[in-house]
Structure formats: C-alpha cells, structure tokens
C-alpha cells in the first residue's frame, strides 16, 4: 500500500515535470497560437487583439496555471486544425491506438516468448540460431518497410486484411481488429527481437536453477517444468522490457498509422505537428507520456503479483 502510494506520487511528480517541459517548449518556439489562427499575413493590431483576448500576453505562470487547470478539469481547449474540443477528439484516438498497442504487445509476446523459450531449451544449437536470426530480421528492417511488405502480401496479394482505414471498435469490434491487424503485426515484428532475447536469457538462467532440477526429480512432465515452473520466474524481466517498449512504440506508431491511414493517436500527433496545432501538440504529448507511465506502473504492479519476494515493503 505504501509502495503504491509512493509510486503514484512519483507518477504525479513526473507528469508535472513533463507538463512544464511541453508547455515550455511550445512557448519557446517561434509563432504563437494567435498567429496560427490568423496566418502570418494578418493585421498586427487584430493579431494583438486576439493575443489579448486569448490571454497570450499574461505572464507565463498564469498561462501555465490556466492550461494546467484546464487539463485537470477536462477542458483541454480546442484544436485549431479540427475546430473541435480536444478532449473528446483525443479520447477517441486513444481508443483507436490503444487497440493497436494492445494487439501489438499481444502479438509480440505471443511470438517472442515461445521463440525465446525454444531457443533457451536448445541453447547453442540450430534452434537457438534460428530463433535469434528470426528475431533480428524483424529488428533490422524499418517498421514502414515491414508494413509495406505486409500490405503487399496480406492485403494486395492474399486479400485477407484491409490495407488501410480505421473502424471504431465500439461500433464494430471485429472490423476494428481486422483493420488494426496489419499495423499491429508490423509493429510487433519490430518489438519481437528484444523480447525474444530477453526471454531466452531469462529462461536460460532459470532452467539452470536447482528448483528446476527438483521439479524434474518430482516426475513432472517437461512441458509443466518449462511452461509451468520456469516461465513464471522468467516472465518478470520480459514484462519490464515490454513496458519500456511502450514508449518506443508511440514513436513507431506515428509512422505506421500514417502508412496504414489509421486515424489514431500517432496520426493525430503527426497532423498536429505538421500544422503547428499548439494546443493539440501539448495535449497529445501529455497524454502519451501519461499512458507510458501508467503502463509501466501497471507492469511493476503485475511483477509484484507474479513474484512474492518483492511484495513486501
């Protein structure tokens, strides 16, 4: 309980620091919101008037307080590009990208864990080499290239999955999954390498442990020994790496969503950056940071559920 409190406190503190950085950066960049609204050729007096009415001439601290207050109360302002309130816009996109992130992680783990376990059980044999090569192949190719290959093969040639577009999962879940499948697979193949290596090394350490020998001496079948006894011990570090990869994933998602014309957070961030939609940029960065941190917190909590030794304290 004390642990959870400590962690939440540190999450809040980190979010506070991130809010200062995002707020600061967008204020240091040349060109402000008023100019974005009225264009560079606008009348200086009208521009000044708009600045005054938007409160852009207030001291930075006041502006920050107003922005932060809005963020906390759900009033995130309006997107200049879409002319819509930001909060509902982002929540819809978070849902879309959330589907991709979850599917990516599920696919990456579903591929990496068996591959890593397989490699660990046959270390330094051909199975091990095959596993490393497969994993590295995914890592060494850029995501967008994998994406294009997947589109060519699964969408254009086989026609199993749509090559682009987005379906709202609250309206048609099956369709949403079908649309998210190829982008998720492209991302998963990129993440797989680290996870496979991590699984392999963690499993190799665990399989040499005495308690594995004890489990075998009890007459448990090898399947139970490996998947039931060893894997729960090895899964912790794998989960930690997976949690850290979420951050990296949001970088790749920008490219992949654009490639697949999938209108999620990545696509939205890209549009916001391209059009210097400052309020939207601030909000997207803030939301992504919060999601990454909350996911990592969840991973750490999960770790404590799996491993009783770190439950105390």
């Amino acid at each position: 309980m004390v642990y959870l409190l400590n962690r939440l406190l540190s999450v809040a503190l980190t979010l506070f620091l991130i809010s200062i950085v995002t707020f600061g950066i967008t204020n240091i960049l040349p060109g402000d919101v008023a100019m974005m609204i009225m264009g560079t050729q606008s009348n200086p007096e009208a521009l000044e008037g708009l600045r005054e009415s938007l409160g852009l001439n207030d001291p930075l601290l006041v502006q920050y307080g107003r922005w932060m207050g809005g963020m906390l109360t759900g009033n995130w302002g309006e997107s200049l590009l879409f002319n819509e309130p930001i909060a509902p816009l982002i929540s819809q996109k978070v849902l879309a990208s959330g589907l991709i992130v979850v599917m990516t992680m599920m696919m990456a783990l579903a591929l990496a864990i068996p591959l890593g376990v397989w490699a660990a059980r046959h270390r330094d044999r051909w199975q091990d080499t095959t596993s490393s090569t497969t994993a590295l192949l995914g890592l060494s190719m850029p995501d967008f290239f994998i994406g294009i290959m997947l589109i060519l093969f699964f969408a254009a040639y086989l026609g199993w999955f749509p090559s682009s577009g987005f379906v709202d999962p609250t309206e048609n879940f099956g369709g949403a999954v079908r649309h998210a499948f190829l982008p998720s697979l492209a991302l998963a193949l990129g993440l797989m390498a680290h996870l496979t290596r991590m699984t392999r090394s963690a499993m190799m350490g665990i399989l040499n442990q005495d308690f594995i020998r004890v489990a075998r001496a009890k007459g448990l079948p090898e399947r139970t020994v490996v998947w039931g006894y060893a894997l729960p011990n090895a899964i912790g570090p794998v989960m930690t790496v997976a949690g850290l990869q979420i951050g990296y994933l949001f970088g790749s998602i920008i490219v992949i969503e654009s490639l697949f014309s999938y209108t999620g957070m990545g696509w939205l961030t890209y549009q916001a950056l391209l059009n210097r939609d400052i309020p939207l940029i601030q909000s997207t960065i803030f939301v992504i940071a919060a999601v990454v941190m909350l996911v990592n917190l969840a991973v750490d909590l999960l770790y404590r559920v799996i491993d009783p030794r770190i439950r105390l304290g």
Partner: protein
Amino acid sequence: MLDQPPQQPLVSIENLRVEFDGESGPIAGVKDVSFTVNPGETVCVVGESGSGKSVTSLSLLRLVEFGGGRIVSGRLWFRPGEGEAIDLAQMPAEKMIDLRGDRIGMIFQEPMTALNPVFTIGRQLTDGLRRHRGLSAAEADARAIELMREVRLPEPERRLRQYPHELSGGMRQRVVIAMAMACRPQLLIADEPTTALDVTIQAEILGLIKRLKREFGMAVLFITHDMAVVAQLADRVVVMRNGEKVEEGPVERIFAEPQAEYTKALLASVPKLGEMRGKPAPEPLRIPGAPEPVATRPASVSTTGRPVLSVKGLTTRFPIKGGVLRRVVANVHAVENVSFELAHGETLALVGESGCGKSTTARSILRLVEPTSGDVVMDGQDILGLDAGGLRRARRNMQMVFQDPFASLNPFMRLRKQVAEPILNFDLARGSELDDRIAFLFDRVGLPRDFMRRFPHELSGGQRQRVAIARALSVNPKLIIADEAVSALDVSVQAQVLNLLMELQVDFGLSYLFISHDMAVVERVSHRVGVMYLGRIVEIGSRADIFEDPRHVYTRTLLAGVPIADPTQRMLKESAEFKPLPSPVFPAGHTRPAPVYDEVSPGHLVLRDD
C-alpha cells in the same frame, strides 16, 4: 536370457559410463562404475569435486541428460515394488517421469535455491502427489500437512500458504525432504543435502534422514564429500575419484582398514574433532603421498608486549528502512559489543553459524563496512579514527583472504599482475626487485613460476587460493584475516592450504584472524578461539579451554553438532526437533546491555546470559 538381472538388490549399477561434450570430443564424467544398493540400506558415495559422484546419482534418475550428459553404456537396474528389475538406462523418457518422485525421490544440496520462489510451499509439496497419486487438492493438502509433521516442520498449516523466501535454510531443506518423501519412495537419493547448512542444522537433518529411513524402510543413496558425515550415516561406502570407483566396503572397514591409497589420503586429510587434545600449538595435517610437513617449530606466540590487534566494544548495525519517508525502523545487530586481542604470531579463530556476525566482525576491523561504535587498535594505531588516506596506508598491515577464490581474483588479469598489484599500490618494490619478490611469493605458496603468466580460469580452486594468499602476503602484513578461506576447497586441497597457512605463520610471524564455521578445522589451526552467537562472543579462550572445557551452552551445542569422522562414535539423534534461530533484528533505538563475562580460568571468558 543373458540380461538376467541380479535378484537381491534394489539398485544395481553395472559398468556405467556417462559422457559430456567437451571442446575436443567427449569427456567421460563417469567411467565404468558398478555398485549396488540393497533395500533399506544406506550407501554413501564419497569423493571430491569432479569425482563423478553427483553424475552417478543424476544418471540413476536420468536427470543427467538435462545437464548435457549421455549415458553411453552400462545398466541401471532398479526393482520397483515387488516386480521385476527394470533397466533405467533403457527406459523411454515418458516412462521415466512416472518413476521420478514416485519410486525414487531426490534431495539436493542448496535448500535456498531448491524451491521455486514464485509458488507456495503447499503447491510445491502437492504437485508431485497430485501427479503420481491423483489426489484431489484437499487430499493433497492434508497429505502435505502430514508430511511436514513427519519432517518436524512447526506450524504446517501455515506453511502451506507461505512462499520459500519466508522460510530459513533449515526449514526449506525440511520442505525439500518432505517433497522427496511425498510418495513414499523406495530409494532416496541425497546429493550433499547438508553441505550448505550449519552444523547444528546439519545434525538435525541427518538425524531426520536416519529416522525416515528406519520408519519407512527406504534405501538411501547419499552423495557427499564429507568423511565425517559418511562415518555417521553409512552402512556401506563407495569411494570415487575422477569418474572411477576407487574402493567399496562396509563403513567400519573403510575407516579402520582403507585399502586404496586415495582413501587413506582422503581420511588423513580430514581434521577430526578431538584429535588435537593435549597439543599445545597448531599442527599441520600429515597427508600420505604428500611431502612430509616441514618440521614444526612450535609457533612462537609472544604473549607479552603489545598485541597486534586489539578490538574493544566493536558494534556494527545495519539499518532497515521503511515507510514513505524511508526512515530507519529497525536495525540488524550484526556485531554487538565484541572485544578481543590478538598477539603476534597467534591465530584467533572466530567460529559460529551463518548470521552470527563473524564475517561482519572481520569486515568491520578492516573498515570494509563501517562499524557503528567501538575501538580497533592495530599495532598501536587507532583504525576507526583514520581518514581515507590513513586507512589506505594502515591496510598494508592487514590483508584478507576470502572464501571464494573464483570470485576474489580478477578474471581478466594475469596472476603476476594480481600479486604485484598490492606491492605497486604501496610502492614497495620496482623493477628486478619486484620480479624477485613475486617469484619468491610464488615459490613460497607452492606454485610453479610459470603460473605467473596464466589467468585465474586456468587454475584449480586450491591453486587460486594459493594465489590469493600470495597476494595477501605480498605487502608483508602483520595480520591476515582469513574469512572461510578453506571452506570452498576439497578436503585434500583444504588440508594442503591449511598446512601452508600454518607454515607461513611460523616463517613470517603472522597473526591470523581465522573466520570459520568448521569446528574441526578451527581446532587444528588456532591458538585461541572465540565462539560467536547472534553478534556476540559467548565464549573465548585457549583452544584447550573451548574444546576440552566448553562452558557456554551454545559452545556445547555447537560441538555436539559436529559429526565425527569415526563410524564407531555415532552420535546422531533421530529425534532432533526443529529449533528456530532467534532474530538479530531489533527496533530502532533498542540497546542491548553490555555483555558481562565470567573468567572461569585465566583468559577463558564465558558470557553470562541475560
């Protein structure tokens, strides 16, 4: 049928050969080993590391395959129940798992790692039962509680839901034994089950195995390196070396009239508790086959004059932090008000069980950990008052030899450089003088000079420990602290290193602070002995005082737990109950009263219990 197995024994190993893949072709871990185990019999397989004793036992369960081994030839006859003997070497793997844990149970050396840390004790005790006996969850739990009672684990109901890290080493080993006993095996294979345990717990566990064996009529195949344990437990003994059987026979015969030279050497290398009775000074062990120890001038201990080391009221505590603000909520009282003096040329041994604070005492003296309070005076110099530079210079006079020679040498550095490093650090010699000095040190610890260019991994454990000793000697220290310096070594190597330490003491007039858990070794090497328990010295005196006239109840318990390497003096108590060890953790601010000692004879102090 030519393959007619012998009718009587439970296990009959015939011409077993096990190979492992080496860099240049297969390496034989076991070559042509044959012996039998009869129902209800205890057979001890004894040998040093690399003798193939563990590989033999793992082959019987066919677990050796998981470690990269192959049973190349030989038969492993086993008679399950009343039926015909079957050859385990030819058993298909899927049939083998039905025998493992059911007819044959196994316990291993290291109780701290033998249990799966993420599952409860209950689950680990019951999964074998549920698999082999098809019990329901409730039935298996009931049986698990019964098993824990059989191994004398207190509060078995509570243990079901506990995790391994909540249990002490002795308790965990009882769980491991209970697991192996779950299906009432006909054969229990025990691979060094007490090597990692303290002597008092070792005595309890050995007594337990003995009782279980008698109660359930099971045969025990006991693997060990410890001749004293063999003497206490075995009906028959198989001595192994380099993958071959050297000798086999009833335990009394092996100890009274060993036939093989190797068995004789092995027996001679074991320090036997009590054999130093009446001798005034430490004495090297006589090892047949090895050069006769150098004529032992009695080490000259100067009892007059200034002591080399004087420790007064040394206290070291480790804080335990908790709460949101990470404040100190409790302290581990690792060393509590410890005082002693060490004279020139003298060996003072600190003995005690794990967690008693003997190693922390050593580290506190060198200030490798910072003591909380007390005085340490080394050769007239107040060590605890020194600044960083002064401490560095002072450490020249006090060197340390650690337990694990695999970990205490830098794997990337040639041995010459490792021995030269302290000399260069204190700028004691250069150029040809440095070369001469290193050559002298290598000669002195009995290592060939061409070893200087080698790396640590090219040496055996004993040779590495010799390098560590040479490194400690290189700066001509007055005091050497040996922290379990021979505990990780095989007995024959241990004997040689002990002899070397004693020889060097006579030649260089060294003082040793000898930290050990092994009472028999301590009796061999020390002039004086301090017994530690829960951070305190409970009794200190001359070797004769402690070993011939122990006064404190803990000293007596400790001595009573030491197995004696003599099968005619069996002392295992089958009823040994579980005794929990009190905790050295006290709430913050807790002070323990200063210890009061009774001087029962000159220099023999006994703690008055509070």
